[in-house]
């Protein structure tokens, strides 16, 4: 039985009203906070250092002649500064975070508990391998899970986030082509329905990028893609489910055609949350796919922590994966394979087939993310992971169908969406656009959705609710967006100046981008200025 089932609440007066402005600018618990350089005094320090006793320096004329200009704060002032700033932030622990393509799901506290265990948190990557068998075992076990969930052959664990993983996959493809003597394949095809990082990755790796159009229903134009295949095509980069929130049904057919033409298939796995446990990319002919542990496997991100982007690889690409990697031998020992032992170990255990393209990071990857992701996987189990995908898709479809009567949903006719619902600003009153709806959502207490992406949708609003929101939370968000959409369609002028209740009114984003102020300059002291 719940407490206070009658819903009774004490009636209290609403704050604000016609109160005079406060002396400090604070509004009770809503605190104004100056820059760290504007508080404290440079005479103050949180640490009491002894005077330096360095007699001659070997730097000669290069020694510093002026003060370094660090802010001067006591420990308490520092703690308060950052705690105050943290209260002005929006976070997944405060409310629903509908950013499409980001999979901002709840970060279970069990993950945090595991990641803080001293055996994982207090070790160093240069420790002798004998003393970190538990941590290496976690990397290895997570690798085994990722291979199993994706139906692939191998995995590179070290990439630090999604785009880094993309680069790793594309470098594997480049190495494989060069090994085959086909380094002349220089074109990477990227459909319009793919993530924006895909063409950037291919260009960064030295390939030239060509677009493949999307169909009106938001999927790859398979015929156009097949027509472009040829002896100059190195790879195709496909996001599945794609940025229109749709499953690319033709992926197997596309993969077969790409392989027949001598190319490789890279899949952007940022949206893996929608299919985890239900679809294995390996079965669809994918050669490389990064997995954002910080999305699908609930490790914190978006200001809350670093990313992690392991790349699963097909049998054709696995030999070219980066160093270092872990390998468990039959005796149970987990080896860390680095340059010194790579050839010897490969000859001994893999028939000499490994031919790494090199190294992407100094050490083994994001250990803290590995422990969190494995804790998430093990606590959900195979059945739980399957339900993750089902519930993520169900929630997105609930949002889509609850709002399609008031917002234009360009792909709603293409059938159910996957993990994200997409709307356009079609139907808004003249002069009103997606930005106005997004700013009004801030007044409603929500982080805005992804705006103006994907580019194929006019004024796109991309919403990914994830599986971790309850129906009650979704209904509240849907109610807020419905109200905002109705105001935009009616041309409510107050929407143009939203947000009204945030600590700052609408910022001039154009001015901020054209003339950014990126450095703090100390105020000119009156006495010095007079000299």
């Amino acid at each position, binding site marked *: 039985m719940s407490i206070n089932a009658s819903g009774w609440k004490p009636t209290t007066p609403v704050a604000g009203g016609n109160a005079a402005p406060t002396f400090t600018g604070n509004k009770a618990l809503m605190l104004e906070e100056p820059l760290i350089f504007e508080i404290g005094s440079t005479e103050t320090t949180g640490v009491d250092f002894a005077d330096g006793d360095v007699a001659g320096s070997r730097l000669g004329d290069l020694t510093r002649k002026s003060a370094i200009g660090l802010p001067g704060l006591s420990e308490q002032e520092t703690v308060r500064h950052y705690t105050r700033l943290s209260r002005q932030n929006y976070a997944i622990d405060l409310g629903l975070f509908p950013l499409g393509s980001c999979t901002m799901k709840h970060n279970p506290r069990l993950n945090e508990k595991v990641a803080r265990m001293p055996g994982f948190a207090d070790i160093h990557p240069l420790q002798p391998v004998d003393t970190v068998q538990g941590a290496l075992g976690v990397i290895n076990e997570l690798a085994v899970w990722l291979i199993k969930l994706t139906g692939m052959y191998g995995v590179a664990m070290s990439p630090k986030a999604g785009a880094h993983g993309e680069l790793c996959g594309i470098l594997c493809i480049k190495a494989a082509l060069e090994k085959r003597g086909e380094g002349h394949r220089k074109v990477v095809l990227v459909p319009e329905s793919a993530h924006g990082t895909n063409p950037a990755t291919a260009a960064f790796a030295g390939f030239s990028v060509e677009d493949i159009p999307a169909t009106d229903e938001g999927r790859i134009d398979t015929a156009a893609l097949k027509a472009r295949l040829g002896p100059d095509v190195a790879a195709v980069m496909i996001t599945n489910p794609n940025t229109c929130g749709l499953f690319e049904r033709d992926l197997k057919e596309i993969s077969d055609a790409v392989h027949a033409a001598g190319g490789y298939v890279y899949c952007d796995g940022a949206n893996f949350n929608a299919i985890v446990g239900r679809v294995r990319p390996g079965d669809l002919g994918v050669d490389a796919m990064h997995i954002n542990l910080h999305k699908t496997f609930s490790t914190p991100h978006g200001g809350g922590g670093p990313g992690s982007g392991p790349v699963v690889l097909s049998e054709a690409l696995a030999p070219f994966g980066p160093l270092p990697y872990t390998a468990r031998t039959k005796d149970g020992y987990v080896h860390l394979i680095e340059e010194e032992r790579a050839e010897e170990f490969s000859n001994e255990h893999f028939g000499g087939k490994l031919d790494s393209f090199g190294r992407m990071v100094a050490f083994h990857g994001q250990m803290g993310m590995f422990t969190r992701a494995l804790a998430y996987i093990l606590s959900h189990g195979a059945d739980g992971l399957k339900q993750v995908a089902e519930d993520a898709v169900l929630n997105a479809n609930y949002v889509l169908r609850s709002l399609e009567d008031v917002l234009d949903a360009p792909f709603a006719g293409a059938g159910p969406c996957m993990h994200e619902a997409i709307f356009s600003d079609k139907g808004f009153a003249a002069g009103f656009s997606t930005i106005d709806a997004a700013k009004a959502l801030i007044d409603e207490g929500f982080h805005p959705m992804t705006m103006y992406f994907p580019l194929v949708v006019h004024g796109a609003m991309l919403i990914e609710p994830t599986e971790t929101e309850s129906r009650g939370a979704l209904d509240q968000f849907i109610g807020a967006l419905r109200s905002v959409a109705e105001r935009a369609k009616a041309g409510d002028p107050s929407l143009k100046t939203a947000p009204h209740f945030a600590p700052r009114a609408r910022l001039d*984003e*154009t001015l901020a981008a*054209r003339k950014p102020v990126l450095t703090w300059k100390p105020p000119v002291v009156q006495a010095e200025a007079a000299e």
Partner: protein
Amino acid sequence: MSRYFTEDHEWIDVDGDTGTVGISDYAQSQLGDIVFVEVPDAGRALGKGDEAAVVESVKAASDVYSPVSGNVLEGNPALTDEPALVNSDPEGEGWFFKITLSDASELDALMDETAYAAFVAKL
């Protein structure tokens, strides 16, 4: 002097064998407030349809393609400090680069002002 348009919303004014290239008023209105423009360096050889410049607005970053083949004479230096010129005068002061045409027959495939207006009306 005559003006031609591409389906990617670039315009080119041709005077003899010299062309001046920019993006159309329709393009700037779709992009929104322009905050950054990168123009090509003088001397760069461009093929028709090559990526020649980059334009960034608060909404998106887009490539600007060369409507013709040729060598770049100069990029518009004013856009570095004042990208807003592309919004305020897209088909005048907000030009992107000047180019020496290597094949004037490429212009035949482009639209004139009337055809472009009809093209935009259908979008």
